């Protein structure tokens, strides 16, 4: 072990586990790619996660005709879809990177911290596997990498149990919130994954776990505080917002260059007449904007609710042509500009970090879990938390709600307003049974301009046919 002799090299190995969440390869830019089956920048974990959580929903629609990208919004993907395939392999590759570090540090107590963080990151990816695919190959540090073997398939229950056990086992060994180096995981990330998983437990394992969701939301609520200005959370200096942001995926104009990650999120959402310079970039890619269904969640598009960062000039509310960026209102949420107005260090690659989890989410998790019957919280506290979010959004109490206003539909809408484009929407719509089926239709859902009912199988993505063929232990739910 000539290279892995010092703490530094283990830290670089750990850095890969983190960078695996955003970069496409080992050389700039997305070159020497990690995944062979798709272009390096498309294989960025964050870019794929964004596409999978946002495009199948009312929050986003893309003007590009890359391969079968369109199928994500149409909700008619199949088990050969290259983007679904890439998401699947990216999750499994991330797990393999973490398994490797966990195995290498076995019995080396000086690297316990690295080991525990790798276990959290692995749990995060297994959580994504659970949430998006509902099943998948199960591999841990005990398996031997580099030899061909066929991993067993873990069910939803097994994945749920594994993530729960892992996170509750190491929870207390992690650093306290905000005490680790910026960018690295602490207790907050473990709590956040657990709280989200418990909130969705009914979907995953048919067993409600709302009390547990409240328990872990409370841990988060006790440790973080809301940032005063909503917009600051999405700007080039949002690394300063550790009061609210629990876990960022970091990005840097000169050191963390990718065409995926934040580069994609910011560039793809700029187009039409929206001046690129005001987003701190050198030009938009004219891809992602939103549907009228999402616009209708807001009182107006002029910023009464300041979270609605719409750009409407030269844009049409309704989408006649999916491939015309000007059809559908644009949103300018993420920008490569600092809170003081300075432009990021590089016009192509933003400095803006991605807030994977932040406090506001858990105010809403708390409220929803209380409404769904969890114990350990109160409705009045739930209303207070939501009003904290709304006061920040409205600048005053004019948008505040009362207990009478609080119901599940309100929560879903509020989650949309607060957390749009932060990779939560697909999971949320499934929990409310609105992603598939016909109870809620938005423009171009089911590939029809007005939106139409879709098959329930689209609540999960299929295991790609390439892995079904490579591993006889795997199978898909019927319909795929």
């Amino acid at each position: 072990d000539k290279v892995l002799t010092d703490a530094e090299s283990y830290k670089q190995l750990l850095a890969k586990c983190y960078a695996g969440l955003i970069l496409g390869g080992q050389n700039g830019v997305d070159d020497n790619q990690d995944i062979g089956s798709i272009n390096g920048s498309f294989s960025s974990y964050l870019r794929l996660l964004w596409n999978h959580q946002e495009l199948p929903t009312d929050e986003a629609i893309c003007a590009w005709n890359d391969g079968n990208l369109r199928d994500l919004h149409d909700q008619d993907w199949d088990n050969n879809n290259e983007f679904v395939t890439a998401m699947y392999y990216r999750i499994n590759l991330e797990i393999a990177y973490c398994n490797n570090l966990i195995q290498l540090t076995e019995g080396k107590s000086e690297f316990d911290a690295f080991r525990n963080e790798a276990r959290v990151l692995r749990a995060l990816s297994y959580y994504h596997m659970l949430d998006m695919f509902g099943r998948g190959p199960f591999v841990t540090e005990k398996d031997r990498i580099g030899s061909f073997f066929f991993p067993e398939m873990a069910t939803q229950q097994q994945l749920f149990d594994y993530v729960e056990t892992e996170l509750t086992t190491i929870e207390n060994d992690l650093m306290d919130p905000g005490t680790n180096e910026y960018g690295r995981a602490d207790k907050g990330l473990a709590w956040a994954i657990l709280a989200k998983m418990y909130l969705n437990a009914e979907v995953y394992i048919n067993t409600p776990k709302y009390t547990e969701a409240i328990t872990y939301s409370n841990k988060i609520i006790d440790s973080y505080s809301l940032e005063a200005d909503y917009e600051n959370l999405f700007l080039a200096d949002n690394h300063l917002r550790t009061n609210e942001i629990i876990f960022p995926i970091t990005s840097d104009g000169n050191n963390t260059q990718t065409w995926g990650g934040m580069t994609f999120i910011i560039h793809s959402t700029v187009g039409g007449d929206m001046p690129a310079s005001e987003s701190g970039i050198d030009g938009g890619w004219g891809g992602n904007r939103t549907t009228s269904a999402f616009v209708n969640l807001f009182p107006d598009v002029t910023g009464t609710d300041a979270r609605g960062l719409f750009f409407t000039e030269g844009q049409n509310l309704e989408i006649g042509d999916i491939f015309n960026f000007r059809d559908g209102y644009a949103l300018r949420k993420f920008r490569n500009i600092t809170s003081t107005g300075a432009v990021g260090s590089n016009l192509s690659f933003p400095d803006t970090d991605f807030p994977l989890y932040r406090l506001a989410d858990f105010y809403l998790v708390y409220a929803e879990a209380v409404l769904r019957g969890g114990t350990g919280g109160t409705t009045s506290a739930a209303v207070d938390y939501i009003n904290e979010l709304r006061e920040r959004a409205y600048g005053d109490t004019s948008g505040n709600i009362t207990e009478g206003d609080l119901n599940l539909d309100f929560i879903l809408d509020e989650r949309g307003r607060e957390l749009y484009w932060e990779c939560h929407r697909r999971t949320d719509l499934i929990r409310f049974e609105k992603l598939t089926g016909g109870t809620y239709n938005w423009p171009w859902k089911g590939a029809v301009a007005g939106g139409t009912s879709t098959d329930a199988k689209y609540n999960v993505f299929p295991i790609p046919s390439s892995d079904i063929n490579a591993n006889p232990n795997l199978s898909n739910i019927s319909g795929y």
Partner: protein
Amino acid sequence: QEKAVSGTVTDANDGMGIPGVSVVVKGTTVGTTTDIDGKYMLNVDANSTLVYSFVGYKTQEILVGEQSQINVVLGVETENLSEVVVIGYGQVRKDDATGAVFSVNSDDFNQGSTSSPQDLIVGKVAGVQIVSDGGAPGSASTIRIRGGSSMTASNDPLIVIDGMPLDNRGIDGMSNVLSSLNPNDIETFTVLKDASATAIYGSRASNGVILITTKKGKAGQNLQITYDNKFSIGKIKETIDVLNADQYRALVNERALTNSSVNPDLLGNASTDWQDEIYRNASGHEHNLSVSGSYKSIPFRVSVGYTDQNGILQTSEMQRTTGTLNLNPKFFDDHLKINAGLKYMSIDNRFADKGAIGSALRFDPTKPVFNNTGIYGGYTTWLMSDGSRNVNATRNPVAQLQQRRDESDVSRYIADFQADYKLHFFPDLQASVKLGYDYSDSKGFTITDGEASWVRGTQDVIERNYTQEKKNKLLDLYLTYNKDLPSINSKIDVMAGYEWQEFWARSGGIEDLTDDTNRVDPIREPQNNLISYFGRVNYNFMDKYILTATVRRDGSSRFHEDNRWGTFPSAAFAWRMSEEEFIKNIEAISSIKVRLGYGVTGQQDISENDFPYLGVYQISDSQTRYQFGGQYYNLIRPNGYDEAIKWEETTTYNAGIDFGFFNNRINGTIDVYKRKTKDLLNRIPVPAGTNFTDLLTTNVGNLENNGFEFSINGIAINKDDLFWEVGFNLAYNKNEVTRLTNYDDPNYRGIDVGGISGVGVGNTIQKNAVGHALNTFYVYEQVYDANGKPIEGLYVDRNNDGQINSDDRYYAEDPAQDYNMGFSSYLKYKDFDFGFNGRIGIGGQIYNNVIVGGRYQEMTVNEYLTNLPTEINKSQFETAQQYSDYFLEDASFLRIDNITLGYNFTKLLKPLLGFDINARAYASVQNAFVITDYSGLDPEVNGGIDNDVYPRPRTFLFGLNLKF
């Protein structure tokens, strides 16, 4: 009774004396050789017969009798092949060759070809396909012998230059490994096709072997100076039909009426043919000078060459300087033979950005090249409404060429030294030592003009430098034992040897880490070794039955200890039927030989990775780091690997007949073969989670190639003033994947290959699938309306399940032609000569990726206009239909590669100069024309996906050849 006999041996062609002709008394070893003027003198018995022989000439026998002055005129061997053919680690009389071996020597090379050696034998050898990668100066060619035997590993043949096997992996900054040789210095190409001939090269021989020998001086030869020069002018043959400015304006205005996303305000007033703007007439010139002869009994040849070639795509150019020196003296009564050679090459390339070819099809024809706004170097550039440049838009193709410099400077030396020593005390045994050294040094850079529209801010790298140094070393030691055993009517020839090769490279900018047990250790300088033991036995009984057996054992450091060694045997049998009494008497038949061969070869060339069995840790570069706290950390990534990876193995069976009729005026060869490859090196999806990658190269799958070959050459007319020779060859090859996965899955549809572009990323159009040929197209079957117009999005429901989805895609054909033919004709009338050669390919499909992206929807995406090919008027596709078989076309073609007309004005010069100068002037057309149904530019595209290939120019060439 002995008496003195003397005389002169002259060349039937030019009447000049031939030095070095062997004059031997038949049945003895008594004899002499002719001097530099072709004169000889010898004391012989009147009853004896003298045998006059010289390589390349017909041997003559003359009874001395009363004569004391015997002048002999030797005619050139009419048979195409010289008597001796080069094989691995030795040579063999052509009559005794047992394998499928075909050689082409310099007399038969394609004429007028310029820069690249492989052009010399295009279409000359049945079963050898040579397709250039494009029309750029010095561009490489893909050479396939009997189809490919591999999926992921290299399918390139092993190339051996003067006994030195080359490293097929490329040299940075140089597109063609072979272009380090000047075609003028090449004496012969010998293609070893079947495994009985190639197995002696073991683990690198699965794709055949090409042996190249360079020209050498001859003992006792007069000083000979040759000078060649060529001037050429290359023109583009045709361009892709795209809408012109007026047509495009009309279309944009028309569609804007019904489509909100089409914005006619973006149109300009100019009328630009962008393809005209990027192509030019390309000039080139070439000079070669060589001197050969014998200095103090040391035969030598020196040559220098210079080539300066522009490409038809603006800014592309190449300059090459070559030099060679060959010495091949003999010492101690010919007991010690030395062959020493030095080849030098220096090449300066400027590569044009080939992206301009695609941009020229798409850039709005209503815009001028320059808009003189003072920004972006004045080149017209698409802007956003806020005045910033549109980063999505098509780049100005002229700017792409002019605002970027991509240059390289490569020098290479190949030195080889061989000593063959026949033991004084035991002359049947010969010991040979060969040393070889192949060194290359590359430097290159790309500089982008800071003003270029695609340069993004000051942080961007607009200059990139790279260096690469490669050293390959070779040591061969072998013993040859040669014995006639007349008592049992046998000849035996045994060879055994050892070879050591080292491949070392150092390239700038890449930081790699690995280790010896399983992980870690820097390999900025990848190095691997190949150690081999080999042997051959040749047994000849009665000059009729010949048996050859070879074996090679190779050890490569690229594989794990457990898989490091491989053994590659072969056996072949030849029956010289024409030596049998019942055929000997048939006047018309000069020779018939039947051959049977079997052999096993390997393939180890996994170009992507030097040590595919090792878990390697790789560190990232400075753009690829991650933030912890206030610091950025480089990343260490474990790379995917397969511990158990090993050679792939090909078993070949071959049967053939060589024949010659009418004193070998007609001769030819027929071969049939079957090649089975197992443990294919194959890049397949690994079970997710089990490795540090999703796709990994490993040994899985079987492949079969079956084919036959036929070639014939004949001299149709052979009169004093008129000579006409024609040649034809035909090859059929079909391959089929017979196994692909580790377990049986009847539903498995195969591995995606054949990436296409123009419609976003990540699309593939081919599959490797069981029961189909490699790279078989996998497409939907288009449905057409009554007028033959494709109905957009409507495909045949091939599985009849009532819906159209990816299960309805079907396996179409593969890109490889089923039949490949080559033909040539050479006619000489008095001092004029006229020749042409061409090829026919039948079968195979080509995917026209050039037009796939051109559909209405693409016209105004993202605030800029995109031009469309005129094909749009036919298909009228709104959106991309890239998986439709509408874009698949028949790739059959007939091509005339070359037409040459020459005139020899030696006789005109002689009275003027008073001495002999052999002088010939000629004019030729390269790539004269192609007849094909394919609607794109050129049906010959490697891999069958036509996508903005650098067009091959039609080149007019004028040359002068002087010999004195």
